[in-house]
């Protein structure tokens, strides 16, 4: 690794130095193409984010792709009903690595106001790994931009080697997640235990 002092000195002289990791991550974080789909009212805020006033293009994420094969980022914008959940997981599986997920709004995080309902999934993180959660009902476009920036920071810090490398560079990491089946009373299984476990109870002393 190049010394930080030497590096600033070199850049002052007009010599730019970088590492493969920085260059690679800079390229990935600067062109996150979201999958074009919305589930409920959060999608309206997502659309607003992509329009001129908030302009998600400033972050290189304006290319909403209608096909999962071309998308890097899944923005789960809205209530995930149990009837819709298998399709979401299937779309996620169809996206090529590296791929990221933003759960937008309380419904996508936990079921939100519909948590006790019979038809709503209590959070998409039961079936697919979520990188950034944004609370809000719906979150403001600024919140989505904040989530995107958080995700960019996360990508920026991902090492290309070692134990903390992202799943797409780890051959043993699962590439696909099981799609839940429609059961007689509920989705089967109701969650992916490898990804999600019911929270244990902790008491404040």
């Amino acid at each position, binding site marked *: 690794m190049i010394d930080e002092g030497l590096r600033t000195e070199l850049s002052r002289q007009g010599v730019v130095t970088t590492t493969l990791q920085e260059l690679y991550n800079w390229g990935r974080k600067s062109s996150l193409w979201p999958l074009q789909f919305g589930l409920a009212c959060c999608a309206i805020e997502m659309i607003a984010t992509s329009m001129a006033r908030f302009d998600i293009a400033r972050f290189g994420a304006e290319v909403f792709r209608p096909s999962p094969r071309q998308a890097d980022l899944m923005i789960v914008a809205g209530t995930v009903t*149990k*009837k819709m959940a298998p399709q979401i997981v299937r779309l996620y599986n169809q996206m090529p690595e590296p791929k990221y997920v933003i759960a937008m709004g309380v419904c996508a995080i936990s079921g939100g106001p519909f948590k*006790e309902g*019979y*038809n709503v999934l*209590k959070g998409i993180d039961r079936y697919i790994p979520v990188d950034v959660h944004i609370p809000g009902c719906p979150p403001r476009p600024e919140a989505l931009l904040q989530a995107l920036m958080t995700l960019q920071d996360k990508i920026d810090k991902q090492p290309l080697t070692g134990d903390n490398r992202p799943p797409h560079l780890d051959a043993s990491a699962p590439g696909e997640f099981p799609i839940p089946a*429609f*059961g*007689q*009373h*509920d989705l089967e299984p*109701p969650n992916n235990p490898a990804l999600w476990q*019911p*929270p244990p*109870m902790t*008491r*404040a002393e």
Partner: protein
Amino acid sequence: MEALEQLKARVEAAVPGAQAEIVPNGSPANQPSLSLDCGHARTVAEFLRDDPDLRFDYASNVTGVDWPEKTIKEKIKVKKLVSGVEKEVEEVCERKTPAYLEAVYHLYSMARKHGPLILRLRTENRSDKVTLPSLTPVWRSCEFQEREIFDLYGIIFEGHTDLRRILMWPEFTDHPMRKDYVEPDDYEYEPTPHDDVLTRARQHYPGGTPA
């Protein structure tokens, strides 16, 4: 629009054999409704739509109700022998009304600018005899809403052209809006559990009640 009593009489006169019953509404809305017998409901609906004075051409809303078994307590005066003398004694008599499912239709007339007229159709019980005549052939707007009732309450609409589940998936076997629906046991932590949720919280976290 004419009064409901008058309308009931006209319906019964126009459709031979039809029986309508006025269901009073004790709430502040005071909106009584007309309960029809299932056998003639379709003909009555056609009469309501086509009669030149009524012209109920718009079914704005169809919904379902699940009525559980009810015990009605009534005081009845009975003549009884009390210590050898015949006396009138008040007795509390308990009467049970069977459980049934109900479909409620709200009708308006765009042409005559009146409404709503509320129709009720009742099933015989809520287990095996849950068939009602579909009014979709009369009012097209009932199609999706009758499907929703079929999905959530389990009323089977005879004469409906496309009776499938609309909100839940086809493999689903329950009817979530029925009173006896048992939802899948997927409780997790709630910050402020109460009532039923508190009971479930205690079952899932027997170590202690959530703070």
